[in-house]
């Protein structure tokens, strides 16, 4: 059966499904059982599965990552959550020196199944240390897997795949996706890690995207359709390992590429993909591929400083038209939201 669910509800569904299926799945994180329940994603878990398997934790990001390794060595599958990715930076030793290398450095004798949910913030002046998208850091480390779903359906299927994967997986959620609605099957299903999805088909240009930027890309493509421009949109879903087969297939068809990133464009996942395509599909390219990420400065705070800071549907349309050498005034094609620093004018929740 299909149900309409938000992205946050889909995460909650995956947690219930995994904990029902396997008694060795446990969940912890700061605030996991507080009144707000991590933006609703952990609602009802403690009541259903008890305080032994669902517990609040001390503000000790590094140690609690190591605890997940230790639990993993004795058969447990931990799902840890942090309300902001930025907080998790305190845990780099346990993540990089420990979890990522355990299977390798002991000759493949033990694996550590850990899922770490990280939430990227945006807007309402969260600024330099509450809105960082550092997924490329994690993708740089061999031994880690990194997934960043966009749709509620993929969120559930990928979270289940992450929890039952034998390796440490960073499961990265964008706060602006939590309220996104979509159809989510009730049953236990898996979306494979390492497979991108060609979600819109077109022959003119390839747009590769991830997480919340895929929503902006879809808005841009709607406008471009009005101009009879057809884009191929690939939602990466996993950024480590990257599904190059799907990207190659598309670029061979279109010969043009724009890669969107939700992080800084310097040394980003997008620049990595552009480098790979330039090295491997150079002869297929009709024009220089492009990286579209955040400016290479910290994220500012003030309402005025954040204006036009993030690339959006309008900047995507502008770039596509430039690549296709089409001159067109597009200003009248966009309706401006009242406030740029919220996911929609309907939004009145805490961040």
């Amino acid at each position: 059966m299909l149900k309409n669910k938000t992205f946050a509800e889909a995460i909650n569904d995956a947690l219930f499904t995994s904990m029902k299926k396997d008694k060795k799945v446990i969940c912890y994180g700061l605030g996991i059982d507080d009144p707000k329940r991590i933006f609703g994603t952990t609602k009802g878990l403690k009541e259903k599965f008890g305080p032994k398997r669902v517990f609040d934790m001390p503000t000790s990001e590094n140690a609690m990552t190591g605890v997940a390794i230790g639990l993993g060595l004795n058969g447990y599958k931990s799902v840890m959550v942090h309300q902001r990715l930025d907080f998790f930076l305190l845990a780099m030793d346990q993540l990089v020196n420990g979890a990522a290398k355990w299977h390798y450095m002991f000759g493949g004798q033990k694996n550590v199944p850990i899922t770490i949910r990280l939430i990227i913030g945006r807007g309402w002046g969260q600024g330099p240390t509450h809105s960082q998208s550092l997924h490329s850091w994690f993708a740089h480390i061999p031994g880690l897997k990194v997934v960043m779903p966009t749709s509620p359906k993929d969120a559930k299927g990928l979270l289940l795949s992450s929890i039952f994967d034998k390796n440490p997986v960073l499961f990265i959620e964008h706060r602006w996706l939590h309220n996104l609605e979509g159809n989510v099957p009730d049953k236990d299903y898996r979306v494979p890690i390492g497979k991108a999805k060609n979600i819109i088909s077109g022959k003119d240009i390839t747009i590769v995207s991830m997480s919340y930027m895929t929503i902006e890309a879809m808005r841009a493509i709607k406008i471009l359709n009005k101009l009879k421009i057809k884009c191929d949109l690939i939602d990466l879903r996993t950024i480590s390992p990257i599904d190059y087969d799907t990207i190659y297939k598309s670029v061979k068809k279109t010969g043009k590429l724009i890669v969107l990133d939700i992080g800084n464009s310097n040394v980003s996942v997008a620049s990595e993909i552009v480098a790979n395509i330039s090295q491997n599909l150079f002869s297929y390219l009709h024009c220089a591929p492009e990286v579209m990420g955040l400016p290479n400065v910290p994220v500012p705070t003030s309402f005025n400083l954040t204006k036009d800071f993030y690339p959006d549907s309008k900047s995507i349309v502008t770039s596509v038209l430039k690549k296709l050498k089409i001159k067109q005034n597009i200003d009248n094609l966009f309706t401006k939201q009242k406030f740029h620093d919220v996911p929609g004018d309907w939004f009145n929740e805490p961040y």
Partner: protein
Amino acid sequence: MNKKIKIDLLKKMQLIRLVEETIAFKYSENKMRCPTHLYIGQEAIAAGVSCGLKKNDFVVSTHRSHGHYLAKGGNLKKMIAELYGKSTGCSKGYGGSMHLIDLSVNFMGSTAIVGNSMPIGVGLGLSSKLDNTKDISCIYFGDGCIEEGIFHEVINFSAQKKLPILFVCENNLYSVYSPLKNRQPKKRSISNMVNSMGIESYEESGNDVEKVYNLSNQAIKKIRSTGKPIFLEFSTYRLREHCGPNYDNHIGYRGIKEFNLWKKKDPLFLFEEKLIKNKEITHKFKDEIILEINKKIMKAFKFAESSPFPKQIDAYKNTYAK
């Protein structure tokens, strides 16, 4: 303490000492091509603690882990082969001296970043509690670890959750070449601090193996019955250089006077002397133990040297579990 335990303690200490001395002797052949931190001078702690542990109890350790591994019953041949980087090594050549593992005795792994293995031992302790077993988790670490943030995280969580963990702090006064007095407040005792953080703590000489055994065995029994953690701080001294086979008293970070003082407190010699003086063992018996262990060691080195290297292509395996 009955005689059997005394002989066990002596054998464990002697095994560690002779293995380490053989490594030191052969290190200059340049066949053991990995950073190696010898445990000589600290043997009483691993031997004393391990005699109270059961096979199912978990152990995690640090870069200086040969003693902890051997005392827990870790396979000697596989350890030496690991130092030689061979495919028959305990980590198949992927880890070296600083990454030992022997799952057959629940020696779960040693890691090489200060404080790194502590929370992993805590996770193992939590798994015992969740599984309702009586297995405890023993975590070895040094005095340098106290200065890491993770130390406080680990002590706090273990106290809050009441986990079955034996914390064993080996205070050998140096973090590489930096003395304790440059790193920690002069009059603050580590064990007193941990006690006030909510974990029952004790301080003892780490060079008297009987004292180490008595205290840790008592602690282990208590942890098993109460499920709560206990913290032990043992004072000791590493006799060789921080990393490598030699002595490093000449480079100027510690005085020869200090070294000689600790040399007189060599835990193995002290214990042997006491057993002989009390007529619990004879010189002949002592020599027989040495002979027997040396035979085992020679076999282990032969095994390591004659074992094949892992294939070059193996470097590209094992990044992910399948």
